[in-house]
């Protein structure tokens, strides 16, 4: 969209099928409309979704058409890696969790201050105005809290905390000053302004079925927002079923000349030339393309003079948290199904007073409070009939998302000996959680329990089942930004140090992982990088 609106003829290559806005087949289905109460039978899981459903909740009848079949799109592992994805126009923008939190200098300066990996080549001041711009267009509902480490953005009104969540907020603030329970900041239009929210957008209906595709265009997706705006310029061409196998490099000009693609339907091989390439195929896809773009100048992958391409793989890790029952509030209820619960920003290792000796960085939480089914123990028969249609007790749950440090040894690479059905080398993963992550998790679980206790919850249960990298679907790193071409792939403008007309602004560019959900940062980096590229073209440098 950014390129189109600046007047550039832009070709979007998508390896999967076309999906037009509104082509969301399950958007209006209730649980009872879907086979097996929305679940997928074990046989079908075993045949098609063994890896995609490793979390056991991800693949459902309502969303399985957005998820790749493992038997069609295999990958390899040295260590378990849950690479969860779907090939279609719009990609994960249709399926994402929509939480949007700004990064801060606590995140951008962390590597440098702690001597971890390499320094980010940017700071918050470089991104702040771009956050303003993309947040305004995207539409983020949220509540300003004045926190320096998760800065306030351009917010629409929040989806407010319900009574139990508000109680949690107050109880936690009282017992643990510095811990903030705030409405989740999500890319859902709590207020719709057609003059600002361009494309095919509309007011959020509070149905909480976002991950199926929204017929109202109420959350940000490529289909509802960026692609229609790009299309209006007349500069956009979308070519679905186009698998980019590699980027073509010309050693004479020291630039990329275009890409080679395989048409997924005809199996035809084509070469398409371009003046400027934004290689954003999602973190792993991006790096796989770059690793497969080998030439005499770059025998180990395009722009990989540093040798860092494929390394420093990150994600967030979760599978930890706590839940409990909150007594009281029997007369209180809510109406509608908001698309976000609460968020608790990171509160450890912010400053000297919150410094931990046992781990670096921190974690955040997402959670919610709801009234659960009313089925008291020991009550059956007519007595149960009287109660089961009424709302039950309040339960509060929170799940913890932890930062994963950028380890050089956590990596992905290509197995050139094994090819997929299109003749492209298979991707292989070798990444795992390490000591810092496991120590951090203990504190994350313990803190969740403490906060539920502070709220007066009973029957509190906690869990800590470490997820494999990839499972949080926040893959980051593998083509990181940095000051030095010897240790990084991209410069401070997301431009390849060694191939100036190739930019990467998806998760591959990340130099550390933060605790915040990353998408809005990718969007801010993208708008900024396009603006820079445009300036470079105007100045005759590209």
């Amino acid at each position, binding site marked *: 969209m950014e390129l189109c609106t600046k007047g550039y003829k832009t070709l979007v290559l998508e390896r999967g099928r076309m999906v037009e806005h509104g082509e969301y087949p399950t958007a209006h289905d209730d649980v009872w409309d879907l086979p097996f109460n929305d679940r997928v039978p074990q046989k079908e899981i075993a045949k098609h979704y063994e890896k995609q459903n490793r979390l056991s909740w991800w693949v459902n009848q309502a969303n399985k058409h957005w998820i790749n079949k493992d038997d069609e799109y295999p990958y390899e592992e040295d260590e378990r890696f849950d690479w969860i994805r779907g090939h279609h126009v719009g990609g994960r923008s249709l399926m994402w969790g929509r939480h949007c939190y700004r990064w801060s200098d606590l995140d951008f300066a962390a590597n440098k201050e702690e001597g971890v990996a390499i320094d980010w080549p940017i700071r918050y001041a470089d991104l702040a105005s771009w956050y303003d711009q993309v947040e305004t267009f995207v539409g983020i509902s949220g509540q300003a809290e004045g926190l320096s480490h998760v800065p306030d953005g351009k917010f629409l009104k929040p989806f407010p905390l319900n009574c139990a969540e508000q109680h949690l907020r107050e109880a936690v603030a009282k017992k643990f000053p510095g811990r903030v329970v705030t409405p989740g900041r999500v890319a859902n239009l709590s207020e719709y302004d057609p003059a600002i929210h361009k494309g095919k957008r509309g007011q959020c209906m509070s149905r909480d079925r976002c991950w199926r595709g929204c017929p109202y265009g109420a959350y940000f997706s490529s289909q509802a927002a960026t692609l229609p705006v790009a299309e209006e310029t007349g500069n956009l061409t979308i070519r679905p079923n186009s698998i980019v196998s590699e980027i073509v490099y010309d050693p004479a000009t020291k630039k990329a000349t275009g890409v080679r693609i395989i048409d997924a339907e005809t199996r035809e091989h084509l070469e398409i030339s371009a003046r400027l390439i934004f290689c954003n195929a999602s973190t792993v896809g991006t790096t796989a393309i770059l690793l497969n773009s080998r030439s005499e100048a770059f025998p180990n992958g395009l722009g990989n003079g540093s040798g860092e391409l494929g390394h420093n793989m990150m994600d967030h890790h979760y599978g930890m948290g706590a839940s409990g029952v909150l007594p009281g509030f029997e007369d209180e209820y809510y*109406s509608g199904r908001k698309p976000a619960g609460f968020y608790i920003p990171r509160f450890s290792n912010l400053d000297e007073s919150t410094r931990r000796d046992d781990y670096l960085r921190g974690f955040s939480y997402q959670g919610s409070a709801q009234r659960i089914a009313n089925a008291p123990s020991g009550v059956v028969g007519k007595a149960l009939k009287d109660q089961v249609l009424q709302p039950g007790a309040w*339960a509060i749950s929170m*799940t913890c998302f932890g930062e994963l440090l950028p380890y050089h040894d956590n990596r992905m690479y290509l197995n050139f000996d094994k090819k997929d059905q299109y003749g492209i080398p298979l991707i292989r993963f070798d990444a795992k959680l390490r000591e810092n992550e496991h120590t951090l998790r203990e504190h994350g679980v313990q803190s969740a329990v403490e906060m539920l206790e502070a709220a007066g919850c009973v029957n509190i249960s906690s869990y800590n089942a470490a997820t494999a990298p990839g499972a949080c679907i926040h893959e980051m790193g593998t083509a990181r930004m940095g000051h030095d071409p010897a240790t990084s792939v991209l410069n401070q403008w997301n431009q390849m140090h060694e191939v100036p007309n190739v930019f990467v602004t998806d998760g591959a560019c990340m130099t550390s992982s933060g605790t915040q959900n990353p998408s809005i940062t990718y969007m801010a980096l993208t708008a900024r990088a396009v603006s820079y590229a445009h300036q470079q073209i105007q100045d005759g440098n590209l």
Partner: protein
Amino acid sequence: MNRRQILRYTAWITGSAVSASLAGAVLGGCSEAPRGTAAVSSSSLAASTTDTPLLHYFSPDQFQQLGQLVDAILPRTDTPSATDVNVHVTMDSMLGQVMDANYQRQFKDNWLALWKYLGQQNFAGRDADQQAALLSELELNTDAALAKAQRGLVEVKQQTIVYYLVSETIAEEHLNYLPVPGKYEPCISVESVNNKAWAI
């Protein structure tokens, strides 16, 4: 199913904690339990190929008793009973086709203990009030010898309630069904919605 949805149903607590598999089965909950690779032995729970409906988990005898049991848990009153909305058919299908092998094994173990106990107590021969009293007593009992039967009952009860509440008839006609809310109101009074739960 999004992550928050998971959170909602990991907190399903009905006296004793609901199994993750069950929460997952109906509502897309979060089961972190490792999936077994071996298929469950179906020797004693062989699906019948001669009866209708086609059974996927229970034997015909067991299926018949399951129907009695779920109707004892949720009998017909001015609202439908459990079997009126096919809770037993759903349970058989979900257990046989959707639940993972670990859960199938665990459920079978408890179910067989429950079946045996109910047989000893002449459950089938009792009237509705006596059946309810028997089940209530079993659910609340603390005798270690009855732990498996009790767990079996809790599992059946939880599944019965879940499948009952997400059946089309109950959800649309007997709960507050609002497919397109239009807006979110964080705090309303229970009386304002007639003290009925939301269907979805």
